Each structure stands twice: as structure tokens, then as C-alpha cells.
């Protein structure tokens, strides 16, 4: 059974169909990369998975449990919050909380969600996560004292601290200076090698090809092509996919 089943997701904004009919499955431990040009609906899809947008139609099922049915949206905020915890999201703009240190950013939500007696072990775990991100010496720094790459690594640790089933990345390196993308990609690569289930929206084609198991090419609100990442990116079948990939190579 796939860990994630997405079926027939449709989403309109005003009169624009942003997602037309999106369905795909993801197996546990696999990494999926979603590629496509701006405005193709990649980010909206990711936001639907994280319940930041509610699809008009379609279902999202994790480990056999249906979490969302667009035709019959959840109105109870508590259920919504519980369902949301299956997914983690790393934003393009990091969105760290500026008034908290790196460590506090990581531990804030887990501490709020559990008993006071758990606090020490949550902090221990937070330190471990930051250490894995190579940020042992930065734990007590505030976000504005960190570089973009360091901030994004804190954001990844923050998402991991919630122990989501599926970790999503929305163009995690797009807001970074080119020389800082490497350190973030390295961390994601490491997560992939440990079989963290991930969905990555990215413009880094070489990275998507090397790290992802499968890839989806989205165009104009539909999945135009999907398959093993290496195959899709090296030998795309669809004309539109070829066009898109070669336009990136031209840069």
C-alpha cells in the first residue's frame, strides 16, 4: 500500500483552474520531485497537501486513512490540525520565527503539542536534529544571525521535529544565493539516503534527477508526464517536457 494516495485533486482560484485533475501515489521511503514551469500548479498542489489550500474536489489518503475529501471539507479545526501533522512543509522563504533561537524554532511546536514532562527530551531531540543539519554551534543564534542556507537547514530540522509521514519542500533553494544552495541540497540528499518520504518542488534539475526516485512533470494544472526521475529528466517522452528541460539547459 502506498503511503500517500492523491486522487483527482481539482482546485480553482476565482475562474482559473489551477489544478485540473491530479492523481498520483507515493511509496514509503521514496522521494518524489515535482518539476514544471512557474504557474503550472506545483506550489498549489503542495499547499493542498499541507492543508493551506482546500481542493474543490479530490481526496488525500495517508497510510490508508483518508485525510481530506475536497467535496466534503473538514470544518473542525482540531481534526484539521491533526490531519495536517502527517505532512511537514519547508518553505521557499524559510519562514523561521524571528523572535526564537534556532533551537526554539525547532522545539516550539513539539513542546506545545505535548506534556510538560516531555520538554527535556524534546529539547534533546531538537539539539540532535540541528547537529545532523551541521548547526551544533548555531543553536542559540537568532534567525537574522544566520545565513540563508543555515536558516533553511533550521527550517528543515523544525519540520522534521514534528515527525511527519511525508516531508514537503517548496522550492527550498530558490531564495538562496547560488553558493548556499549546496549545503541545503546536501542535507536533503542525506535525508533521501535514509529513506525519508519526501516531495520536492524544485527547479534544480540535476538534483531532482539524482535524488528523487520518481518525478512528475506538471504543466498547466495537469500531470503531463510521470515516471522514474532519471528517465523522465534524461529522456522525456512528451514534447512539452523536452521543451521545458531544454529551456533550463539554455540558461
Amino acid at each position, binding site marked *: 500500500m502506498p503511503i500517500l494516495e492523491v486522487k483527482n485533486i481539482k482546485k480553482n482560484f476565482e475562474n482559473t483552474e489551477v489544478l485540473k485533475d491530479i492523481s498520483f501515489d507515493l511509496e514509503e521511503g521514496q522521494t518524489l520531485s515535482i518539476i514544471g514551469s512557474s504557474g503550472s500548479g506545483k506550489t498549489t498542489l503542495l499547499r493542498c497537501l499541507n492543508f493551506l489550500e482546500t481542493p474543490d474536489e479530490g481526496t488525500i489518503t495517508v497510510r490508508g486513512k483518508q485525510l481530506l475529501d475536497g467535496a466534503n471539507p473538514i470544518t473542525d479545526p482540531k481534526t484539521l490540525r491533526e490531519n*495536517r501533522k502527517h505532512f511537514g512543509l519547508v518553505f521557499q522563504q524559510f*519562514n523561521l520565527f524571528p*523572535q526564537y533561537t534556532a533551537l526554539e524554532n525547532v522545539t516550539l511546536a513539539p513542546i*506545545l503539542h505535548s506534556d510538560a514532562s516531555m520538554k527535556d527530551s524534546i529539547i534533546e531531540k531538537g539539539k540532535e536534529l540541528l547537529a545532523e543539519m551541521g548547526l551544533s554551534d548555531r543553536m542559540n543564534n537568532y*534567525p537574522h544571525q544566520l545565513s540563508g542556507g543555515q536558516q533553511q537547514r533550521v527550517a528543515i530540522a523544525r519540520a522534521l521535529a*514534528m515527525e511527519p509521514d511525508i516531508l514537503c519542500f517548496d522550492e527550498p533553494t530558490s531564495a538562496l544565493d547560488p553558493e548556499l544552495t549546496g549545503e541545503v541540497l546536501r542535507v536533503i540528499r542525506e535525508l533521501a539516503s535514509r529513506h525519508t518520504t519526501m516531495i520536492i518542488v524544485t527547479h534544480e534539475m540535476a538534483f531532482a534527477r539524482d535524488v528523487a526516485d520518481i518525478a512528475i512533470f506538471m504543466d498547466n494544472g495537469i500531470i503531463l508526464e510521470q515516471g522514474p526521475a532519471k528517465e523522465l529528466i534524461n529522456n522525456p517522452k512528451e514534447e512539452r517536457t523536452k521543451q521545458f528541460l531544454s529551456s533550463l539547459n539554455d540558461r
Partner: protein
Amino acid sequence: MFWTVTESLLIGFWGTLKLFCLTLLFSLPLGLFICLCSRSKVKLIKYPIRLIIWIIRGTPLMLQLLVIYYGPGIFLGINVWGTDNSGRFIAALIAFVINYACYFSEIYRGGIQSIPVGQREAGKVLGMSRSQIFFKITMLQLIKRIVPPISNEIITLVKDTSLARVIAVYEIIWNGQAFIKSSGIIWPLFYTGAFYLIFSGLLSILFNRIEKKLDYFR
């Protein structure tokens, strides 16, 4: 003579201080309430509140004092403020509270709008509730952003309290001016300036401290 004047001005300043403190006490929270109403999705709440904000910010405070004090008697034929000093003080207080609450509400509104949506979304994807997001994430960032404009308004309020004398509320300028009639001297009126300066100076120091305290993050 100097000590007589100082004593009288101190008594007057007590009136100024009372008006100042009580105005802040009520208008700061009322402003938040007005701000939430003006951001409401219910049009029947949002638009009347925005109309009121427009009227209050668009007319002189002195006029508002006169309307609140004399209005009920003239338009409704009822004397709501009684005949003694405390009635006039309450009328002045109400005018100040409404006026400042409207200004504060706009400051709050600007502050809330200036916090990136991503902050709230980050809270959401971490499974936090609306109130957790407000108290743990938004609130301190909001306070940091509104301290400078709010302190500006508060310093203005120190001086605006002198307007209350148009409806004969006793405050420091009233007492200073009284010496022109009673003793034929004008310097007590100028002397009141020292009280305003010292008080607003102390407030500036206080606000600077608060800003420094919140300087640890951006």
C-alpha cells in the same frame, strides 16, 4: 510666588496625568477591538467601523470634545454630564478614548498587515491552533512593530490633554492661565512647558528602553 505657582501647576498637572493615564488604559484595548472589527469579514461590522474611524481621524479633537460635551444637551435635550467637574472630566475622557482608540486601531492594523503571511502558515503546518499562532508567533512581532508609532501617539497625547480645557476640565494649562487673571503674570503659563517637557522626556526614555529590549530579533 514661584512656589505658589509650582504648587498650583502640580495640582493642575495631576488633572493632566489622570486624563493621560485613563485615556491610555481604555483606548489601547479599545483600539485593538476596533482594529479587529475593521478587519472583520462581516460587512455590516466592517464598514460602519471604518466610517467612524474616518470621522474621528478627519475632524479636530477639539471639535469632538465640544460635540460629546454639548451634543447630548443640544440634540437630545438631556444633560448626561451633570453640572460638576467630574461630569466634564468624564466627557473629556470619553472623547479622548474614542479619538485615540481610532488612531491606535490603525496602527495595530498596519502592524498586523506587515507580518508576512508565511509566519502564520509556518505555525499552521506545525499543527498550531489560531490562538497559539497569535500568542506564540504573531504577538511579539506585532508589539515590536507598533512600539515606535504607538509611542509617537502617546507623546502626542501628553500635549493633547491640554485641549480638555475647551470644556473647562482642570488641567495644567488651565491652572497656569488662571494667574493671568488673578495676579497679572504670564510666566506661569510658560512654566507649564517645563512639566510637559519633563514628562514626555521620561516617556521617551521608557519607550527607548522597550525598543532596545525588542532589538534582539528582526
